[in-house]
């Protein structure tokens, strides 16, 4: 099983190295004649105002946590699906209860209006 992974390792190493190649190429090849205007921070052509830190709205967090919850649900669905043949009807009931509990949270989410972007 582990013998298959050298190929993946090669791809992984290549994908780590690849982003640096244009940077190094740019460093070596590109002409550098900096002026005041070139060195200034560019932000949509306007002067940058204030700090880069912006306080996000809580809505983003709610979306992220809903994503985590249903991501975990899908991850649980996979081993259930591949072992379904060995368990049978009981697995269907157990997973139905699992999904019903999560659907309850989705309904609460929905009724509270957390799915809408206000």
């Amino acid at each position, binding site marked *: 099983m582990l013998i298959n992974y050298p190929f993946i390792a090669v791809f992984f190493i290549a994908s780590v190295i690849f982003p640096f190649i244009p940077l190094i190429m740019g460093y070596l090849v590109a002409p550098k004649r900096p002026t005041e205007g070139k060195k200034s921070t560019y932000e949509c052509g306007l002067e940058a105002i204030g700090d880069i830190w912006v*306080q996000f709205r809580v809505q983003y967090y709610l979306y992220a*946590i809903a994503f985590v919850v249903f991501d975990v649900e899908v*991850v649980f669905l996979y*081993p259930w699906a*591949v072992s379904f043949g060995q368990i049978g009807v009981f697995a269907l009931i*157990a997973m139905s209860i*699992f999904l019903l509990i*999560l659907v309850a949270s989705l309904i609460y989410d929905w009724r509270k209006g957390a799915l809408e972007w206000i």
Partner: protein
Amino acid sequence: MELLIQIIFVLISTLILGAAVMVVRTRNVIHSALWLIASFFGIGALYLLLEAEFLAIAQVLIYVGAISVLILFAIMLTHNVTSGEGHKFYQRWWLALLVSLMLFAVILVPTLVGQDWTITARPSEESAIAGAVEMGTAFMREYLLPFEIAAVLLLVALTGAIVIAYEERAQRRRILTLAQELALRKQQQQNHAEE
């Protein structure tokens, strides 16, 4: 082969520990979160080395994919913590050191005393112990109750977040978006026409 696996293990462990040290070393909280993602990724690679492919995929999907986004949003939700007063987080570093040493001792002490960590109930070399099929059957048989409780835990996480978020919002005045305001005006006009 055995030696190669050892070398890869050391490389991955160095990556995990280095990233973990950078999490606490760096002053920028966002950079801490990014190093934490690197650490999570290394743990996924360790699972892969243990031939627990499903766990590795789950680690990358949940921790690298979802939890990291949650952490980043949670950081961005706070007020600006990076500027100025960053130093107050480092004053009680000895407390953090104590807690992490105690947690490390939880693993280290049984190892020194002579706890046998080897897996006894491995049926054969071919069948994985943490494969998807094995985990699926285990969830449906021995670990059915923890499995269902996990659903309740997820339910609590989501509803809890909503309750806390909306408590704050209820205090604020509600501002309608343009679309909502148009819909409201249309409804009022309809009501007017019916009268």
